[in-house]
């Protein structure tokens, strides 16, 4: 491919990881930022997607698109199964429950020999290229944006804003929490599947709670409730962690410092609930007089 000659493999790797991280951050933002359900088990759903798709490719010789979809659907079903009981919980209780359940997913995978146990799965065909990663990222962002900017998305946001009022206005809050959680898990599954077919090797430890935190940091840093914020944060944090790769431990310290600084000076995240758009830039210059942006 012509691009391979212009862009070095190192840059290519980063572009693909960035695209995958954008998928993960945007899908978690749907749950945490828009619907207000503080979930820290995103890596668990990634693991479901990664393993399901890897098994499809390794044992069933499925075409990549089928592997991807199976990964996403398995993760989505996992989201429904985990979402229905846990989404009754609020705030920190939900956070702990999702954290625990993601660790259970990891624990179960570690103990299934068919899935390679603690050693993981090796020799997954490398099928994720830049085109797949970018395409999936685009689909994820578009689907979630279209969902959010619709009546159903507003129903999710109303759950975040005031659950009691939302119920009183006829919103089935449990249903919309589960929908958001399932969509988020579905796309986390795609992220996991892309990753598995890029690095060709997966092990349960790659999907531990630290991975969930990495994604959560992107969401919080970018702004809970801002899709473009998640995109920007995914890019920035992926680049930072790449440049700090040689200093593995320092990377975590710098991560922590960034988080603390953001919480101190900009608790709503870089973009808050705003979206980066040309309209916003115009408004900043005082050109526009605030026309409604939901159909932008």
């Amino acid at each position, binding site marked *: 491919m012509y691009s391979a000659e212009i862009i070095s493999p190192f840059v290519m790797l980063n572009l693909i990881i960035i695209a995958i991280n954008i998928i993960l951050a945007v899908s978690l933002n749907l749950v945490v930022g828009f619907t207000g359900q503080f979930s820290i088990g995103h890596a668990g759903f990634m693991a479901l997607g990664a393993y399901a798709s890897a098994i499809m490719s390794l044992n069933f010789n499925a075409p990549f698109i089928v592997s991807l979809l199976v990964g996403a659907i398995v993760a989505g079903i996992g989201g429904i199964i985990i979402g229905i009981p846990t989404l009754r919980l609020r705030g920190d209780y939900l956070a702990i429950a999702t954290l625990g359940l993601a660790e259970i997913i990891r624990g179960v995978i570690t103990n299934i020999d068919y899935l390679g146990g603690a050693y993981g799965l090796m020799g997954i065909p490398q099928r994720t290229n830049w085109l797949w990663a970018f395409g999936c990222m685009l689909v994820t962002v578009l689907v979630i944006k279209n*969902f959010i900017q619709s009546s159903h998305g507003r129903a999710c946001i109303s759950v975040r804003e005031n659950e009691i009022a939302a119920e009183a*206005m006829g919103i089935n*809050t449990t249903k919309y929490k589960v929908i958001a959680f399932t969509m988020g898990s579905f796309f986390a599954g795609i992220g996991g599947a892309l990753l598995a077919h890029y690095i060709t090797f997966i092990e349960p430890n790659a999907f531990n709670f630290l991975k969930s935190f990495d994604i959560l940091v992107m969401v919080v840093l970018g702004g809970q409730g801002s899709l473009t914020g998640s995109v920007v944060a995914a890019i920035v944090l992926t680049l930072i962690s790449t440049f700090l790769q040689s200093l593995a431990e320092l990377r975590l310290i710098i991560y922590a410092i960034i988080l603390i600084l953001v919480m101190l000076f900009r608790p709503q995240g870089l973009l808050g609930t705003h979206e980066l758009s040309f309209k916003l830039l115009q408004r900043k210059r005082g050109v526009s007089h605030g026309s409604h942006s939901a159909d932008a």
Partner: protein
Amino acid sequence: MAAILQTHSLGISFGGLKAVQDLNLTLNEGDLVGLIGPNGAGKTTVFNLLTGIYLPTTGDIIFKGESIVGLKPYQIAAKGITRTFQNIRLFGELSVLENVLIARHLHVPYNMMHAIFRVGKFYQGEKEMRDEAYELLKIMNLAHKAEEKAKNLPYGEQRRLEIARALATHPSLLLLDEPAAGMNPRETTELMELIGFIRSKFNVTILLIEHDMHLVMNICEQIYVLDYGVNIAHGTPEEIKNNPRVIEAYLGEGA
């Protein structure tokens, strides 16, 4: 006139405390009824029972001929009962328009797939919803604030927005929890006119809790008085004003 809402010996206890006891309300279609009583009498508890936030320990609630006890709040809203809140519960970070749009979700004219694939039906449906929401905001004199964040509105306008949002669900019974709280006399007078106007315009039955006696006595046709969770009087404003038990409840014995 047919009864739209009836409660039969409705009651709820929290531990040993009987917050509401043996309440028998009857609201006919098109009524404007007041629910009054001293602080802590259980008025808001009655609203919470009617809207499904609390499950009654005794009695039954019949709305349009069927029992609604045990239904979830969103199911009761879908049946046609919506409310405003005493301690305002708007979707603060969202615009005034979005607040109303969310309440229109009960009647959303497209489904999720239409929205995700952005088919024509979505755009058409979204336009309908927005037009209706704007129309409602115009009636409530909030159209010029449509794009403003709900939390940035002055207090009186927040209360009006709560009413607009409740109306957007197309209720047949509207419960107003202290709509005039925090309003100045001029705003209260405007609100009185608005409530009367809403009733005829939207064809709703209204039950309201209010401490402003001037408002209650002027616009309500029937009044129920609660004291310590017990319905101590029921009648027209004239009857209530002269009822010795009511005077005693408000002013104490010997007053």
